[in-house]
C-alpha cells in the first residue's frame, strides 16, 4: 500500500503492478512498453513504479525479460475458498481474450480457441458461467445507442429524449480501464468524450447481482462475482468505489440492509485462473467441451471479437449500421479496422432511415497507446479531429495481448519498427 498515492480514490487498489527490486537489472526494457513513463529509476539502477502515473496495464509485467514486475493483488486462494463454500454462487465472468490464450498455460499452441474446455474446467471448479461476451453485446447496445444519439445530436441537432445532456463527438470507447485511467490522470478535458457505458466487466457484475438473482435464484449477497480477465487494470477497475450499482439498486428496490458489496467482487487474470485450475488439479487441456448453459453465457460473434484491436469498433459498426439504416451490414466483416497497424481509420457512409439523409462517419482504432495515442488525442484536444468514433485499447493487439495473459516466452509486445534503442539515463 502506498500512502502517498494521489490519483486514487479511497478503496481503490493503489497500483496493481510493483517491481521486485532483487530481480530488476535496470535494463530499461519495461520503459519501452510503458504508456505513461510511470517507471522510475535510471538506466542501471533498480526500477520502481510511480503509482500515480501507472495505469496498471501490466505491459511491463509481460515484457520484462527477468520477471521483475508482479501483481500486488492476488486473490486465487480467496476465490477457491468461496468456490468451496456452498452458501455462495460463484460467477465467473469470462472475458473474450481468455479463451484464445489460457490454453497456452496447459500446453496447447498459442491462439487455440478453448471456449468449451474453459467452460468445462470452470464448471468443474464450481463456477457458474457468465460469459463476458454476453455483456460485450450489451455494451454494444448501450455504447452504440449512445453513439447514434451523439451523432444524431451533432448532425441533425436531435435532442436527448429524456432531456439529459448529449456528449460531444468524437466518442471514445470506455471498455479499456487503462485507457479510462489515462484520460482521468492525463487528459481530463476528454472525460465528456468518453462513452458513459461501463466496461463489459462492470456491466456483467451489475447484471449478475440484479437480473442474475432471478436466474440463479440467490440473493445478491450470496452471489460472488469473479472477473476472469486478460488484464491487470481490471483489478483496479473493479475496486473503484462507485461500482456498487447493484447494491444501490437492490437497496432501493428490496430494502436490503447488508453492507455495500461491489459489483465485481474480485478479478483473476488469465494467469491467475490457470493457477487456480492447477491448484484444484484440473487440466484444462484434457477437459470435455461443455456448453455455457445459462442465459448469460449466450453470445454473438460481435461480442467475442472485443478482445482484438478493432473488435469493439467492428461490432459497433455492425449494430449501428443495422439500427440506423434498418438493414444488416454486407459483408459483416469490417476489415479496415483489423490488423496491427498503430492507428487504423475507416469511414462508412450510412443512410439514416430516420432522417432520410446520408451521413459519413469517420472511425479510428488506436491500440498500443504507448506508441500511438498522442497524435490522436492532441487532434481531439485541438478540435480538429476528423473522427466521430474512436476505439482505444491500451495493449498492443488489444486485450488478447493484455497484461494478465499468459506470458509468451518466444515473443514480445513490440509492434514498432525493428530498431535498436540505446538506453542511457
Amino acid at each position, binding site marked *: 500500500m502506498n500512502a502517498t498515492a*494521489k*490519483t*486514487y480514490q479511497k478503496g481503490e487498489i493503489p497500483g496493481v503492478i510493483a517491481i521486485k527490486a532483487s530481480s530488476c537489472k535496470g535494463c530499461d526494457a519495461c520503459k519501452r512498453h510503458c504508456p505513461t513513463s510511470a517507471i522510475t529509476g535510471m538506466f542501471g539502477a533498480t526500477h520502481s513504479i510511480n503509482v*500515480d502515473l501507472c495505469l496498471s496495464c501490466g505491459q511491463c509485467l509481460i515484457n520484462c525479460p527477468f520477471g521483475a514486475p508482479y501483481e500486488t493483488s492476488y486473490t486465487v486462494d480467496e476465490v477457491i475458498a468461496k468456490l468451496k463454500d456452498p452458501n455462495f454462487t460463484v460467477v465467473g465472468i469470462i472475458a*473474450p*481474450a481468455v*479463451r*484464445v490464450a489460457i490454453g497456452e498455460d496447459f500446453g496447447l499452441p*498459442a*491462439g487455440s*480457441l478453448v*471456449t468449451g474446455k474453459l467452460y468445462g474446467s470452470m464448471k468443474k471448479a464450481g463456477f457458474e458461467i457468465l460469459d463476458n461476451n*454476453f455483456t460485450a*453485446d450489451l455494451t454494444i*447496445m*448501450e455504447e*452504440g*445507442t*449512445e453513439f447514434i*444519439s451523439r451523432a444524431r445530436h451533432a448532425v441533425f441537432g436531435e435532442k436527448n429524449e429524456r432531456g439529459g445532456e448529449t456528449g460531444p463527438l468524437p466518442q471514445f470507447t470506455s471498455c479499456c480501464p487503462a485507457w*479510462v485511467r489515462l484520460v*482521468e490522470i492525463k487528459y*481530463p478535458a476528454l472525460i465528456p468524450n*468518453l462513452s*458513459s*457505458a*461501463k466496461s463489459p466487466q462492470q*456491466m456483467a457484475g*451489475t*447484471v449478475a447481482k*440484479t*437480473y442474475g438473482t*432471478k436466474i440463479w435464484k440467490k440473493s445478491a449477497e450470496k452471489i460472488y462475482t469473479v472477473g476472469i480477465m486478460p488484464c491487470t487494470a481490471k483489478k483496479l477497475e473493479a475496486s473503484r468505489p*462507485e461500482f456498487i*450499482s*447493484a447494491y444501490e439498486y437492490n437497496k432501493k428496490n428490496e430494502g436490503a440492509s447488508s453492507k455495500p458489496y461491489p459489483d465485481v467482487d474480485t478479478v483473476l487474470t488469465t494467469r491467475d485462473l490457470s493457477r487456480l485450475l492447477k491448484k484444484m488439479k484440473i487440466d484444462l487441456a484434457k477437459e470435455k467441451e461443455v456448453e455455457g448453459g445459462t*442465459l448469460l453465457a*449466450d*453470445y*454473438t*460473434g*460481435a*461480442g*467475442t*471479437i472485443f478482445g*482484438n484491436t478493432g473488435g469493439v469498433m467492428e461490432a459497433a459498426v*455492425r*449494430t449501428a449500421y*443495422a*439500427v440506423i439504416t434498418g438493414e*444488416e451490414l454486407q459483408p459483416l466483416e469490417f476489415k479496415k479496422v*483489423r490488423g*496491427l497497424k498503430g492507428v487504423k481509420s475507416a469511414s462508412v457512409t450510412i443512410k439514416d432511415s430516420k432522417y432520410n439523409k446520408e451521413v459519413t462517419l469517420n472511425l479510428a482504432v488506436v491500440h498500443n497507446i504507448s506508441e500511438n495515442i498522442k497524435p490522436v488525442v492532441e487532434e481531439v484536444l485541438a478540435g480538429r479531429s476528423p473522427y466521430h468514433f474512436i476505439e482505444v485499447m491500451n495493449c498492443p493487439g488489444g486485450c*488478447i*495481448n493484455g497484461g494478465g495473459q499468459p506470458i*509468451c516466452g*518466444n*515473443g514480445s*509486445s513490440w*509492434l514498432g519498427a525493428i530498431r535498436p534503442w540505446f538506453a542511457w539515463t
Partner: protein
Amino acid sequence: MENKKYQYIENPLHITRREFITISGIIVAFLALPAVWIKALTSANNNYIQARTKGLYQDDEKAAVRVSHANKSVTRYYKEFGGEPLGHLSEELLHTKYINRTKGLS
C-alpha cells in the same frame, strides 16, 4: 631496454588457399549466424499476438449469430429487466461517470 634489438621472430603465418577459404567461411558464418538468428527471432516476435487474434476471429466466423442486436439473451434481458438501451434503468445500472484525477498530481 627500449632500444634493445631482437634477433628472432615467430615464423609468420602461412595460409594455403584452402585454409584461407575455410577460415573465412567460418568467420563469415560466425558473424552471419547471429544476424540471421536475430532476424528470425524478431520477425516471429508477434506470432503469438496474431495467433490469438486469429482465434477470436474464428470464434466470430463460426458463431451462429454475429451481430449484438440479434443476441436473443440480450433482447430477453431488455424485455424482462433492463427496459431499453440508454433507458432509465440502463443509465442507472450500465452507465457510469468518470473523475478528474489530475488534482493530486499538479
